[in-house]
């Protein structure tokens, strides 16, 4: 498609743009705003958990009477915050940031393409995302409040819930549409638009991670779409896909035909939601791989096994979903199958992590801020992955299921895991996208305090889970064993508030670095991949001359070379 651009007006250039870089930044800013909102929800929850029944400081007086009673949180509002925190962070925060922002901005650059294969479809994806996000947020204003049945929306609870749940279903349909369209775009772009000489095994690991992620999105999300349609029919059209016969709620019989199955919802939901968690981590692994390669000045160790592990992981991720359902009364045959697949899927994850760790051996390691976040990712993702082991086996899971141990497990993977990778990416590619450098000192303060508080939040949760404390408890002091572990809750809450403060240097850095005059060079990190071949910042169309690729993505410290890096796009005397 040839697009002749006369000078575009402000709206066409910045709001309704089809340029993948503009769309990437739009995704990034929107996702960061949603992430911040989701974080605020949690900070309120953390007050109620640490000091149950106490009026919430600062905001308690501002909230409506359906939310607080004289400033102290009500159970209904707590459940809404819980459900929406998860939903917003996963679907409106991490996926749009990892895939929509980083994927859109970097992938075309790293493969030497002028844009994505379908620029207008790209714009439509972003718009669907915004609409879905707004529908989700608006639901807080409904009389019954937002969805409050967990981000997992289990039936029958969600079928009986207030209208906020219907908005959740509608919002999900838009968010899913956005991801489906985006996934198609990524797959076609990566397969078709690679520059000359850029064979598949010369692709940066980041591009591979986005390719597998896109397949997961395209093939797994439809199951949740189907489930959302069925749940919407149950709620609005009186069907009973998820309602068995004979339900009695609050003393009165439920007027439903019956014949449905609550477990059907769980199967459909988790069929998506397990691949979804790999969607949450793979782009992060990709970013960490890039940052580590650049800052170790040597090729990634085990690039090929890492790529094969990615592919194997993606394929296997469709076969483990019922490990979220061990406690639903399934027989031992089924649980054995899923325990086996779950154990097997841990292997490619371990391979990728180990290869990244071994990449440090024999290196020449630099420690700019992106590298700090990338390095921290390794042990943090390690803890997250390892704590998946007792959960993946049914017998220990009998004790740990739906406890704080689970919350700790998955947060270690996404919070000091993926989010640290996101920060690494922002600091790493900032000079290319904006032409400025972020301030190193502010970055280090941001990193060290974030690292401290992340662990302060999630490590106590492991112990809380071991102590038997269940999830989603409005007041954790009701149970004796939970009360005994309450000190851990208080530690977590103060760490969460500390983590919020720790982001201030980052926000300052964000805006302050934009005001500086000096321009960063084209390739400040002396990296080898194609995105560094563009002017800074890249113009519409990206490359001054169509790039040609001559070698692999991580040719650093090649014996006999002049410099300690040989870019993919430079034809040196071979």
């Amino acid at each position, binding site marked *: 498609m040839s697009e002749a651009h006369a000078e575009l007006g402000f709206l066409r250039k910045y709001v309704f743009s089809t340029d993948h870089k503009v769309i990437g930044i739009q995704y990034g800013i929107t996702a960061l705003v949603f992430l911040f909102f989701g974080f605020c929800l949690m900070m309120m929850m953390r007050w109620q958990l640490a000091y149950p029944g106490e009026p919430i400081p600062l905001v308690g007086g501002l909230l409506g009477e359906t939310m607080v009673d004289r400033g102290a949180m009500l159970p209904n509002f707590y459940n809404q915050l819980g459900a929406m925190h998860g939903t917003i962070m996963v679907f409106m925060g991490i996926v749009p940031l990892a895939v929509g922002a980083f994927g859109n901005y970097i992938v075309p650059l790293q493969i030497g393409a002028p844009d994505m294969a379908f620029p207008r479809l790209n714009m439509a994806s972003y718009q669907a995302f915004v609409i879905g996000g707004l529908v989700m947020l608006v639901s807080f204003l409904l009389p019954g409040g937002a969805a409050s049945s967990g981000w997992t929306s289990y039936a029958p609870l969600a079928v009986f819930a207030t209208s906020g749940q219907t908005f959740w279903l509608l919002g999900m349909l838009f968010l899913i549409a956005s991801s489906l369209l985006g996934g198609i775009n990524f797959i076609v772009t990566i397969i078709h638009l690679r520059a000359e000489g850029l064979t598949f095994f010369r692709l940066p690991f980041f591009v591979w991670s986005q390719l597998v992620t896109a397949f997961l999105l395209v093939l797994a999300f439809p199951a949740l779409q189907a489930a959302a349609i069925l749940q919407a029919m149950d709620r609005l059209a009186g069907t009973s896909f998820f309602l068995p016969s004979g339900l009695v*709620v609050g003393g009165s019989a439920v007027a439903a035909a019956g014949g449905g199955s*609550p477990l059907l919802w769980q199967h459909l939901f988790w069929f998506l939601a397990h691949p979804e968690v790999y969607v949450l981590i793979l782009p992060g692994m990709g970013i960490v791989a890039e940052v580590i390669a650049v800052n170790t000045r040597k090729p990634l*160790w085990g690039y090929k096994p890492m790529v094969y592990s990615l592919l194997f992981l993606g394929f296997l991720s469709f076969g483990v979903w019922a490990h979220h359902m061990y406690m639903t009364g399934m027989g031992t045959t089924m649980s054995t199958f899923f325990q086996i697949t779950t154990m097997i899927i*841990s292997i490619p994850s371990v391979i990728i992590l*180990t290869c990244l760790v071994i990449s440090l051996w024999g290196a020449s390691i630099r420690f700019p801020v992106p590298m700090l976040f990338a390095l921290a990712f390794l042990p943090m993702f390690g803890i997250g992955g*390892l704590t998946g082991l*007792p959960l993946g086996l049914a017998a*220990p899971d009998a004790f740990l299921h739906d406890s704080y141990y689970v919350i700790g497990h998955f947060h270690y993977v996404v919070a000091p895991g993926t989010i640290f990778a996101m920060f690494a990416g922002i600091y790493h590619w900032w000079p290319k996208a904006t032409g400025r450098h972020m301030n190193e000192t502010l970055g280090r303060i941001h990193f060290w305090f974030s690292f401290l508080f992340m662990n302060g939040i999630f490590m106590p949760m492991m112990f809380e889970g071991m102590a038997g404390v269940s999830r989603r408890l409005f007041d954790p002091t*009701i149970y004796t064993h939970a009360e005994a572990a309450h000190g851990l809750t208080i530690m977590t809450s103060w760490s969460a508030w500390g983590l919020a403060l720790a982001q201030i240097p980052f926000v300052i850095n964000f805006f302050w670095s934009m005001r500086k005059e000096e321009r960063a060079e084209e390739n400040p990190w002396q990296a080898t991949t194609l995105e560094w071949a563009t002017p800074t910042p890249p113009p519409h169309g990206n490359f001054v001359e169509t790039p040609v690729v001559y070698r692999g993505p991580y040719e650093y410290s090649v014996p006999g070379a002049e410099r300690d890096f040989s870019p993919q796009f430079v034809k040196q005397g071979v």
Partner: protein
Amino acid sequence: MNESQYGWWLPPNVSAHGDDIDLMINLIHWFMLALFVGWSIFIVFCLVRFRQRPGHAAVYEPIEARFNRWLEVGVAVAEAAVLIAFAMPVWAKVKNEFPATNTNPVIVRVIGEQFKWLFHYPGKDGKFGKTAAEYYADDNPAGLDFDDDDGIDDITVRGLHIPVGKPVIARLVSKDVIHSFKIPVMRITQDVVPGMEIPIWFEARSTGEFQIGCAQLCGLGHYEMKAKLTIESPKEFQRWLDEEHSALGL
């Protein structure tokens, strides 16, 4: 209830199969710790030894693949060992090896509803009456069909009493939404799914008073859906049961 027995790690175990589960949890965590410490030592060593400084360049291809292969195979073998030698047998025992009838298990029907647990015991005749969802009412919380003679002497109580040292079979049903029957000290958790009756078995090995909780979000009152578990000697249990039966005034 002795509050001081609870802390920041596993609560006391009063269940016959709890030792197996605790063994697995501990074993797996030692394995996790070993991997984590190993990785961390390696990482820190590299960060120090291979930091960028004058006179030290990176090595293009420093290590051969064999090292990694051993590690991978080792991890896979360890996981397979845990799975085959421990996880599957333990889980099979918990799920499938229900106590035989000649062990005289105590059978109780556990009903989860928003937001309380009910425990339905058979009457003096030892037989449960027929139940159906259509009979649930405020004065008939167990949903008994009163046309069935067997059910007239059944009792429904708010606290679970079980005798120590004898197997118990609990049949879990839900009236409304998904709940989850969790007793930390017994190391059992079982989702209670409407439309299904799910049996679980367990056996207590020491007496005491403990708590049962709901472990699956079930609505506004989920956080306070607790019940008392009383584990007592078989004599005391029988005495309690007799008292409840007499209280019916039949």
